[in-house]
């Protein structure tokens, strides 16, 4: 293996050098979520009250409702649709997928319902009808995100991973 590899490398590299290092400038503009290529922003619906856009990195937080509510009821199932929206602000169509960790788990697009035991579920609000767990988002298109909660008497937390792959 060693002999073969060095022989091949020599042919491709033409033998002028065995390694080279050069620094080149890379500019990465990190923007707040609303302006990113994979844009995350308020849905414009009533439940975007639970989408916290106060920092550069947004979060979902079911706490104050703005109408006196301080959280979900104990021992209850709560569904909150259209909490935030994902927009494809890039230049290619993408397949959007959701996954969760901690107390959060993802459901198929368009199928939000509370989990059967204490926890949080998340789903894209619409199904694109192609039978898989992703949602195709054209350039400039948006899809909302729904949540559901089965609460006991303890607070819940999790991490939502939003993925987007060019088609």
């Amino acid at each position, binding site marked *: 293996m060693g002999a073969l590899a060095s022989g091949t490398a020599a042919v*491709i590299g*033409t033998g002028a050098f065995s390694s080279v290092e050069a620094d080149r400038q890379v500019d990465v503009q990190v923007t707040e*979520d609303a302006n*990113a*290529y*994979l844009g*995350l922003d308020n849905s414009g619906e*009533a*439940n975007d*009250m*639970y989408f916290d856009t106060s920092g550069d*990195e*947004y*979060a*979902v*937080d*079911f*706490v104050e*409702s*703005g*109408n*006196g*509510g*301080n*959280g*979900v*009821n*104990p*021992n*209850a199932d*709560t569904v909150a*649709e259209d909490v935030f929206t994902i927009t494809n*602000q*890039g*230049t*290619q169509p*993408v397949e959007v997928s959701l996954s*969760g960790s*901690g*107390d*959060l788990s993802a459901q198929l697009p368009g199928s939000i319902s509370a989990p059967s035991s204490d926890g*949080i579920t*998340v789903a894209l609000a619409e199904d694109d009808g192609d039978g898989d767990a992703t949602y195709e988002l054209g350039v400039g298109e948006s899809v909302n995100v729904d*949540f559901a*909660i089965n*609460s*006991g*008497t303890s*607070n*819940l*937390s*999790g*991490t*939502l*991973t*939003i*993925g*987007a*792959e*060019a088609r």
Partner: protein
Amino acid sequence: MNRRRLLAGLGAVATSGVALGTGAFTSAEADRSVGVTVADDDQAYLALSPTQAANATFVNQDSGANNELSIDINDATGTADNGDGVGPNSVYEFDEVFRIENQGTQEIEVSISELVDDDFDPTASGLTVQFYPGTDVDSPLHDDPITLGTGTAQVIGLRIETGEPTVENFNADATVRAEAT
């Protein structure tokens, strides 16, 4: 293959790689936190609390479980004669027992399930419990949901009809359901 053709081939691959890279992004992944606060029942999005009226004596709030509200017709602490419950073959109406307030983000329709014999443990015979808004006993909430805008509240009463059940303690869970309109 001579060296020149091999290098040309590599160049072509590199060029197509550059072409793929001109999209603004090929894949993206972002982790965001999700938090849920469980409030006390009387502070939650669908706030459930005792009224200020006399019949609030039948309401219990479990301080060990976020003030979860329950109703106990067996053990009223405020009645003058310390009665033990409802009698057989009777219809009782309890106005203004508890209160529902919409502290969420949307206008809702609220219904509460009716409880009949099989719902109870132990199974009852001829026992029905219905919930009604205000004093409107003829419009029970399992048939006629009420609409509550955000920040508005409704007091709720109980209508209990007893057939000839044995003298017993009957327990059941009623479901309060709120749907955005």
